[in-house]
């Protein structure tokens, strides 16, 4: 318990979290502070490249764990399964329409890579090792949730845009998946030698870039809260606060079944608890244009993301430590 509290305190007072808070505050106070779209996109490319590369190098270093394949499968199952739980939960505690509920569910099956990065940072600071291939698991969890949500719609709801091959390719080959998997492969192939060449680019400035990126996410989240809060019901917000813990529990079970390390279990919890705000919203605009973006974006970016960032991550790590007997 002490552990959780001190971890949570350290986390809350880190430059990364405070930068996010600054962004939210600036935006709620209607300051004109803003980060150009191109710069925000550039930073997200940097973060994806760095995190993928480091994951690959770590796999090259430690060899392929026999659980790599199983972890990927577990990730796919979680991503496909969580939307169904989320959908059920939403139908019970909120009054969202079928279409809106399915769209929100898709977001919670998929993952937020920045939450993953934040979780990895906290683990690193705490000296807890993780399986390097977790970044591949993250990539695997991006897309299946979308397919689940479309299935939910066709099962419970009105007609949906038929899943054409263009949409399928867009989902599978979306920029962040390709960059994450690609840089993971590059890191794996080039290994320690490759890392030596570029570590002062991808390791040293990483935390600092993350600060500015979270400043931007805070600005965007704050804008969303200002504009989108009208569309929010108490039930929906309750879902956004509850679902992360449901997801984390599923992630915990998966991590334990696979026999991962403390860090691996914690990251499985973080991934399952997090909600997408990049890949899934774009897919939803194509496949479910009737769903209201302010609902799913506000929940994902305005409620669940800050929750995970501040309290969620320390709690998941503490639980993973307790359960696996780590540290």
């Amino acid at each position, binding site marked *: 318990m002490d552990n959780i509290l001190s971890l949570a305190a350290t986390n809350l007072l880190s430059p990364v979290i405070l930068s996010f808070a600054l962004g939210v505050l600036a935006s709620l106070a209607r300051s004109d502070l*803003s*980060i*150009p*779209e191109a710069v*925000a*996109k550039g930073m*997200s490319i940097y973060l994806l490249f760095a995190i993928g590369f480091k994951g690959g190098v770590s796999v090259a270093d430690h060899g392929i764990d026999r659980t790599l394949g199983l972890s990927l499968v577990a990730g796919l199952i979680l991503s496909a399964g969580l939307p169904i739980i989320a959908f059920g939960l939403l139908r019970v505690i909120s009054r969202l329409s079928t279409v809106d509920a399915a769209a929100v569910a898709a977001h919670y099956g998929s993952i937020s890579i920045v939450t993953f990065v934040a979780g990895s940072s906290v683990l690193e600071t705490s000296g807890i090792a993780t399986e390097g291939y977790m970044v591949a698991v993250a990539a695997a969890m991006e897309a299946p949730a979308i397919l689940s949500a479309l299935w939910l719609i066709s099962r419970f709801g009105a007609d949906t*845009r038929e899943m054409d091959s*263009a949409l399928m390719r867009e989902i599978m080959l979306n920029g962040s998946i390709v960059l994450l998997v690609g840089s993971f492969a590059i890191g794996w192939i080039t290994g320690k030698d490759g890392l030596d060449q570029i570590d002062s680019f991808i390791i040293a400035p990483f935390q600092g870039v993350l600060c500015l990126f979270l400043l*931007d*996410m805070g*600005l*965007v989240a704050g*804008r969303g809260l200002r*504009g*989108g809060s009208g569309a929010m019901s108490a039930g929906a917000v309750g879902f956004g606060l509850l679902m992360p813990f449901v997801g984390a529990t599923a992630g915990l079970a998966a991590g334990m079944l696979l026999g991962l390390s403390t860090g691996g279990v914690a990251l499985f919890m973080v991934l399952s608890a997090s909600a997408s*705000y*990049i890949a899934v*919203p*774009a897919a*939803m*605009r*194509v496949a479910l*244009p*009737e769903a*209201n*973006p*302010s609902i799913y*974006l506000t929940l994902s970016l305005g409620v669940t993301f800050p929750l995970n960032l501040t309290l969620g991550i320390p709690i998941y790590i503490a639980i993973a430590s307790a359960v696996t007997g780590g540290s």
Partner: protein
Amino acid sequence: MQTHKAKRLAIIIESIMQARLTDILKEKGVTGWTVLPVLGGSGRSGEWSREGQVSRASGMVQVVCIIKPERLEPLLDDILKVVDRHIGVVTIGDVDVLRAERF
């Protein structure tokens, strides 16, 4: 100077639908269009702005297409099919063009 009558079709549409729209244009034999960036806007689905966006989900673009007047009518149905369930606006204006042999 010799000019010709043409129609200026302007479609404000979500970025994610851009490729689908231009695919339709190509299919219908329209080979000329221009895509302009959009910074933000407001409509029935609320206000939005491009600032700090990391997702492609909420951006829009404007596709402008200059066509011969007689080609307009049949094209509109197909465009509406793409735009239909999506947010966005379609306007048609009259213009004169130079070098009409291009259209």
